[in-house]
């Protein structure tokens, strides 16, 4: 009996770690197959990767933050009974989802300055100097993410049972009161997990801003490739770091989601 228990616990642990293990084994296979890979450059360049990773996280955090704020506005527009608002909201979502993020990045980075909108360097307390390029990158990622976030919010709100709004209104509550106090708290349970996924997506998509010279993880990996004349290994390192970020986040989300469900 006792043995069985500890065996169970052991199997459980294996179960939990199996994805990590599979990935590590896969990577191991790649390393073995390619045999002569050399990661000695890390001794000299590991700081590049740390710096790049911090910037990637920073980018993604701000992009999601502003993406959510903008996404809330867009989703409210789309759910609005005002036809003009609804059309603007829908058009925004369709346009952003229907064009490549690279095009959006170029429009923001090259196009907006042509229209007289510059991206100044900003000095923030605690964080320090944020270069103008960085602002353009965050802006693009936010604009892009907002379209997806607004759809997440809209879907989350619409998934709340119709009877909830009816019950609230039948008591005499205003539409806005019902929305804020009755519908939105319930929608949050649908929205939060999906927002976590969006965070993961943004971490990956943020690699695109390396093109305009923002020194995030991908940019740094490229730099190391150039400096070491090793075209392959730095990419493997970057891939592993991206993977650790997204995979850890997705596991954490899974746990948070289960907690949320339990509290029902």
């Amino acid at each position, binding site marked *: 009996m006792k043995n069985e228990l500890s065996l169970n616990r052991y199997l459980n642990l294996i179960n939990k770690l199996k994805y990590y293990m599979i990935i590590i084994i896969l990577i191991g296979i790649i390393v073995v197959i390619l045999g002569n890979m050399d990661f000695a450059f890390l001794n000299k360049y590991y700081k590049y990767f740390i710096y790049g990773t911090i910037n990637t996280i920073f980018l993604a955090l701000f992009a999601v933050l502003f993406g959510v704020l903008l996404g809330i506005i867009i989703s409210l527009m789309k759910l609005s009974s005002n036809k003009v608002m609804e059309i603007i909201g829908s058009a925004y979502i369709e346009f952003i989802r229907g064009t490549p993020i690279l095009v959006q990045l170029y429009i923001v980075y090259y196009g907006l300055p042509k229209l007289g909108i510059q991206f100044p360097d900003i000095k923030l307390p605690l964080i320090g100097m944020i270069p103008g390029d960085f602002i353009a990158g965050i802006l693009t990622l936010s604009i892009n993410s907002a379209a997806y976030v607004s759809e997440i919010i809209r879907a989350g709100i619409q998934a709340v049972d119709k*009877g909830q709004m*009816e*019950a609230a*209104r*039948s*008591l*005499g*509550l205003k539409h806005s009161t019902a929305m804020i106090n*009755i519908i939105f*708290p319930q929608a949050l349970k649908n929205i939060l997990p999906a927002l976590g996924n969006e965070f993961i997506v943004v971490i990956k998509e943020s690699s695109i801003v390396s093109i305009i010279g923002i020194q995030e993880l991908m940019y740094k990996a490229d730099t190391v490739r150039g400096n070491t004349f090793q075209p392959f290994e730095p990419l493997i390192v970057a891939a592993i770091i991206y993977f650790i970020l997204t995979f850890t986040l997705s596991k954490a989300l899974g746990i948070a989601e289960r907690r949320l469900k339990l509290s029902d």
Partner: protein
Amino acid sequence: MINIIDLHKNFGKHEVLKGINTEITKGEVFVIIGPSGSGKSTLLRCLNLIEQPTKGDILFENKSIVNGKTDINLIRQKMGMVFQQFNLFPHMTVIDNITFAPKKLLKMSKDDSNKIALKLLKRIGLESKADSYPASLSGGQKQRVAIARSLAMSPKVLLFDEPTSALDPEMVGEVLYVMKELANEGMTMVVVTHEIGFAKEVGDRVIFMDDGKIIETGTPEILFNYPNHPRTKEFLSKVL
């Protein structure tokens, strides 16, 4: 108290209410019966404008509520509604479900609204559940809380849409009991129900609806015992 005048309701091309004329007087228990799809819920939902009528008028205390000049939120405060699916707010405790609207709309203090809520809970026999969440209640308990939630606004009329249809049979009695008490206290009630026993016992007037029209109106004794219209007879032969 409520006058319904030539009320029509369309969903797209589908005409669901085809000219309803009737009135509900103060203190009466007004029962609506009829086959599924005949428009009972739609009629009830038009009364507090959860559905917007296509044509016709509804007077509440002699004032039209359809013309857009009256503040429908104020009217709804005086017209409670109880749903088949309870529609309690799952993210609030029982007592918060009951006190939310009075606090928001009547600007009642937390203490005052809690007092009222506890009194109502005592009345429906659920004081012990004040701090529970709806998910932990049985269907019958949920529906009793839903009734208490409506009552907390001190409405002048209560609308019930098949309040016992979603309940396990053994829980129907407890909900009907609360409704009977309300009726005995003189509450004006409009009740869509298939509970013929309830209608007979506490109903003052019954209407039989079919295909968006009122087919027959009468006191429970007359309508259930001596139905006039063949469709009423057919329907009653199925449910009695």
